[in-house]
């Protein structure tokens, strides 16, 4: 397995404070010098229902969730109880414990709240399983500890105190974090609970082999989610306008921007629907703001109409698509990569747009910045496609990474002086959509500027913007708009290719993936290589224009390649074959679409099955052989 690591899972009902508790726990581990990564699992329900968060900590950077976990803090679902009568409803209360056991590793630790859960409530086989798996079980009356100092909701804190005690993690980290985030009247009783719980550990017998990894960070670290990074990338790129409509998981970016934009001199708008949201962003962009909007699959479907308008009028626009499991409303809180084709091709006509798919927190930041740079530099919509997984997972990054200058440059936009001198103004009319410029980009003016007036029209139009069905003009305009894609491809190739190569350059076998699955595949590659496999990975993060050169040279260099993606219809593999026009017989697919992202072990098994031609047995993932097999 993977050396010394802690994977702590906190489980309970939604609304029980699992999120905030796990965030503090993650920060405490980070402050203790460890590398951390979180994986969130929650149902589409506000209160109650089974939810957990896993925190993985190691002495080296963590790129993915692990396979299973080794410490469980089971809080019980307080919302499964009727608060008045304190009556228990069925077995909801035992679920946080029992439903999590399948993934608990041998030798693992279980802490559960005996104040909520009688030993008698546990099924007979619990003890057997515990024994067979060498699990170390610690029933503690967390509820009583919490109640003694005030309110039952502090069970979380008690649970954290016990975990820290058992693992030998210094309490001061939690004390600091609580002091920073809680008002005094809440902090004091919580501190009392924490200390009380910790003292109980001293009286407990505990013997287990799990050790907290040790590490010290050389540079200052920050803990960020993919959504944080997207919002921060947008702010640093000078985005000062956002319009949106809530939809999980896009809401995370949207609310972050709502929080920060007013302080940054910008405007955030929650509007009536997603059509309006994208239209407001286009209006703002046209009037001279760096603007964005976004949604998740269903809301993005509504945006396909304004998206086409932005393409036709060459209005810069950045859209975020935070995918979740479809079809239709699908599974609102579960990740999937099923929206790729939707994002690439939606909208009528020969549409053209730029699509990026960040693989991790760092790329979420850099690619969002790049999306603005391209959108404003080339007057084209740029979409950042990510998913529910990357949206919510937290990871530590060097703070230095974000020490970047803001970029308020509006891109290919003229000042009034430049308009007066512009060659394409010589006709006396501002030729906003002039045909023959080198990279297809015809610099724009902004309403209110002297000398720059023009009509932006979603109908085909002349260089001045007048509606036109003249065949020659049509061909010239189409060609110019398409020409921009080639220029963008060259620009990306030369300056900022986001593709990630991982593993041994000379390897015979390849794995290809895109977006949020990259970290998991990297970890799988490490394990495969340790098992003696000759394998490397290509993680693709620029989707359109498709990075032809990078992918072609990778595929040429391997005998076979497994494409890993979270959907049923092999959308990424299909895109690759469509764009490159070959390699079909080399590509097989490993697909997962049960609502959970890949675990490294699944990729390992899937890969081994591919090259050994053995049965692939996981019921959660599907193997699709190469075309022509």
């Amino acid at each position, binding site marked *: 397995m993977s050396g010394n690591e802690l994977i702590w899972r906190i489980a309970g009902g939604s609304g029980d404070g699992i999120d905030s508790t796990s965030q503090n726990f993650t920060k405490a581990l980070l402050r203790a010098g460890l590398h951390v990564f979180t994986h969130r699992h929650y149902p589409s329900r506000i209160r109650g229902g089974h939810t957990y968060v896993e925190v993985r900590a190691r002495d080296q950077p963590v790129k993915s969730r692990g396979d299973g976990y080794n410490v469980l803090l089971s809080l019980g679902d307080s919302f499964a109880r009727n608060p008045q009568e304190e009556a228990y409803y069925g077995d909801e209360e035992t679920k946080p414990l029992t439903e999590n056991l399948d993934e608990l590793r041998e030798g693992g630790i279980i802490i559960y709240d005996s104040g909520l859960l009688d030993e008698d409530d546990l099924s007979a086989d619990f003890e057997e399983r515990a024994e067979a798996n060498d699990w170390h079980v610690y029933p503690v009356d967390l509820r009583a500890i919490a109640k003694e100092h005030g309110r039952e909701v502090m069970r979380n804190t008690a649970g954290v105190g016990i975990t820290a005690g058992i693992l030998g993690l210094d309490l001061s980290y939690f004390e600091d974090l609580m002091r920073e985030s809680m008002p005094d009247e809440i902090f004091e009783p919580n501190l009392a609970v924490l200390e009380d719980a910790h003292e109980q550990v001293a009286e407990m017998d505990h013997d287990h082999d799990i050790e907290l990894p040790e590490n010290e960070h050389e540079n*200052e670290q920050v*803990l960020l989610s993919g959504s944080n990074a997207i919002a*921060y*990338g947008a*702010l640093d790129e*000078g985005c*000062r*306008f956002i*319009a949106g409509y809530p939809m999980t998981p896009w809401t995370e970016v949207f609310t972050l921007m709502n929080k*920060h934009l*007013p*302080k940054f*001199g*910008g*405007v*955030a*708008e929650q*509007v*009536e*629907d997603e059509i*309006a949201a994208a*239209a*407001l962003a*286009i*209006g*703002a*962009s*046209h*009037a*001279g*703001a*760096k*603007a964005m909007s976004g949604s998740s699959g269903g809301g993005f479907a509504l945006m396909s*109409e*304004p998206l086409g*308008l932005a393409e036709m*009028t060459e209005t810069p626009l950045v859209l975020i698509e935070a995918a979740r499991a479809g079809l239709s409303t699908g599974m609102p809180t579960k990740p999937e990569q099923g929206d790729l084709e939707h994002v690439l091709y939606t909208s009528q006509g020969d549409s053209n747009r730029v699509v990026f798919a960040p693989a991790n927190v760092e790329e979420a930041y850099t690619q969002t910045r790049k999306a603005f740079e391209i959108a404003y530099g080339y007057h084209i919509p740029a979409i950042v496609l990510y998913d529910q997984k990357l949206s919510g997972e937290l990871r530590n990054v060097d*703070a230095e990474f*974000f*020490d*970047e*200058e*803001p970029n*308020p*440059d509006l891109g290919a*936009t003229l*000042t009034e002086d430049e308009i007066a001198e512009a060659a394409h103004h010589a006709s006396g009319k501002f030729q906003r959509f002039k045909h023959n410029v080198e990279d297809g980009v015809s610099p724009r003016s*902004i*309403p*209110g*500027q*002297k000398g*720059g*007036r023009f*009509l*932006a*029209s*979603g109908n085909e139009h002349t260089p001045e913007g*007048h*509606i036109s069905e003249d065949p020659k003009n049509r061909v010239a305009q189409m060609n110019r708009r398409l020409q921009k894609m080639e220029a963008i491809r060259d620009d990306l190739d030369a300056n900022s290719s986001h593709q990630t190569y991982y593993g041994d350059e000379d390897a015979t076998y390849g794995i290809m993936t895109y977006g949020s699955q990259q970290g998991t595949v990297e970890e799988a590659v490490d394990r495969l290589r340790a098992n003696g496999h000759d394998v490397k990975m290509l993680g693709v993060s620029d989707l359109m224009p498709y990075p032809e050169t990078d992918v072609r040279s990778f595929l040429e260099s391997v005998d076979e390649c497994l494409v890993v993606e979270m959907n049923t219809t092999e959308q990424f593999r299909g895109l690759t074959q469509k764009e490159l026009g070959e390699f079909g017989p080399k590509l097989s697919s490993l697909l997962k679409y049960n609502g959970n992202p890949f675990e490294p072990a699944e990729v390992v098994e899937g890969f081994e099955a591919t090259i050994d031609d053995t049965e692939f047995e996981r019921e959660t993932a599907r193997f699709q052989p190469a075309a022509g097999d």
Partner: protein
Amino acid sequence: MSAFNAIGQNREVDQNEFTPEIEPQATWCPGCGDFGVLKALKGAAAELGLDPEEILLVTGIGCSGKLSSYFESYGFHSIHGRSLPLARGAKLANPKLTVIAAGGDGDGYGIGGNHFMHTARENHDMTYIVFNNEIFGLTKGQTSPTSPKGHKSKTQLEGSAKDPLRPLSMSLSAGASYVARTAAVNPNQAKEIIVEAIQHDGFSHVDFLTQCPTWNKDAKQYVPYVDIQQSEEYDFDITDRREAGEAMYETESALYEGKVLTGRYYKDENRKDYQTEKLDRGSMPEQPIAEQYFDEDHEWKRSHDLLDAHK
């Protein structure tokens, strides 16, 4: 020096400055009421001394949507029903622009109905002109939301079973702070109303009765109209919501009985426009967003300032 020197000149402007090289005859039929809107708008803009380059005219799709092609200013000919959200985004990015949105009754009251309601509710400082010809013109004569009950068309072969929409009452209840109805057959009133609408701080809704001689041969707009401000029969306080509501109700019923009533219906000068509301709450910058990019002294905050919360 400002980055947007076309804005706020207040010079003497000749109507002809709003005439582009391109001719409306290109797509509008002879006798179309849309010419009346164009004329009224040009007259109003000139009277207000607006520079063509400080106006952003956003239109939807339909014969009405072509207005932005025939009116010389910064323009955005957008998509069916979406002129208002586009206009809102532009106004929020640069509140100094004079923003006018326009479209047809199908465009504004049908496909764009949701946006209409919400733009009125938010009371954005802009003017919205709806060319109400009671028909879908550009798609060749289908029944529109304002077509009378019983209206026959290729999509309503037995006659429409729907009551027509009441646009004036709708915008009043949704929150528009200036509501008027005018008609292409009354050019002087039309110009005056558009002047008032543009001057008004808040969302001004002008339901502009136009005729479509091509598809709506029996349109009421041909019959004599009554200006309610000129007639002694109609005496009500246009700042009183309830009285305005009653006058609208009567007007909207009378139209389908062959009586065309036009004029000012509602004006609320006390209600703050949306941008001012946002400014008061600290959720709108003093300096227009669009200006910030051209201002070399503007201080650009960066996300690094926010990282303490992540340590």
